[in-house]
């Protein structure tokens, strides 16, 4: 998809694998079985966390990169249970 000119953001937990295979924009998530969730949070908190992940992914596709780049989500807002 990148070769065809479509920038992608990959939301995943296994960041080293994504880097190894060359995914250009990587947003780290909290567990393999729930890339856009966190079952340890209350439903409203989980939805807020998901929104921040997707917002970060959208920022990533608007950012020029030249190789695998990690776009961490700022965790200081305290949604980590």
């Amino acid at each position, binding site marked *: 998809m990148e*070769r065809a000119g*479509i*920038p992608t953001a990959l*939301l995943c937990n296994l960041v080293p694998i994504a880097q190894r295979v060359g995914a250009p924009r990587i947003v780290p998530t909290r567990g393999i079985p*729930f890339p856009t*969730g966190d*079952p340890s949070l209350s439903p409203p908190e989980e939805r807020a966390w998901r929104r921040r992940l997707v917002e970060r*992914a959208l920022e990533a596709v608007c950012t020029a990169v030249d190789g695998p780049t990690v776009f961490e989500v700022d965790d200081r807002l305290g949604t980590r249970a």
Partner: protein
Amino acid sequence: MTRVVHYLNQFFVGIGGEDAAASGPASIEGPVGPGKRLQALLGDDFEIVATVHCGDDHAAGVPGADEEILALARGHQPDLVVAGPAFTSGRYGIACARVVAAATRAGVPAIAAMHDDNPGLEDAGAAVVVRSGPVAREMGPSLDTFAAAVRRVVVGEPVTGEHGRIGRVPRRNVLVDANAAERAVDLVLARLAGGGDSEVPLPRFDRVPPAPPVPSTADVTVALVTESALVPDGNPDGLESARATRWLRYALEDVDELAAGQYRSVHGGFSTVFANEDPHRLVPLDVARELEREQVIGRLHREYLVTAGNGTSVSNARRFGVEWAAELRRSEVRAAVFTAT
């Protein structure tokens, strides 16, 4: 007598250059152009019974062109299909590689020649590819290498680096005397003594230069793509839970959220309990719709694309990527948010 069909592009059969690059597949009796020299080098035990040719744009750009070309070649009952040499010519190299890959899949022995830097090398599958020079000026020595390798392929002798082999060499399952645990202990002892060869080569991955960014997501269509195998309840299209060979698409028009019970993951590689409680843990439609309403996302693509990334071979995954890219470009999607488990 070994019956050979030779594949060439529009230029080497003498139809034309870029002006004839769109020409479709066709067939000529006997050897043509470089095929005449190749016939002379192969001698009387071989007969180039036909030359199949195609324009480079058609051969490398039209889906299914490789199968069309192979069908023409098979019409001549070949014992062997040979393609090229393609030197560093990209589209021609891709065409040669795909033709020999298709022939090999169909059980017809096949071999191509091109330069190491030809981008087509990746597409040759399990077929043998040998080195040519970089440019057509080196046709002579390139055909010498090619003819020698053709002779080896026909009698089933291995073609190795020594014979000019380039590209990926297929790895085949074999049964050996010692079990893997014993071999692992042998390897430990060899390593402790300073030696010992790994049985597995370190992989080389195809590096794709990242696409340029979009200026803003507020004005464009964004797609949701996932390998998490999230499908409508009941898995109506039978997505595989492992070793997926295909991908599916599900409409999101008029869908604001993915309700538990209506969508489920059939992925075989992780526990889907959390995902089935709330499918947005795999495909974040709820917040994507919210961001669309707030015009952070211009428009969300009308469907999501899905496969199961569980033991999926790299070759299938690469094909999904190519097909997704074509699909999304047709729909004028400009960026993709991809979730992976």
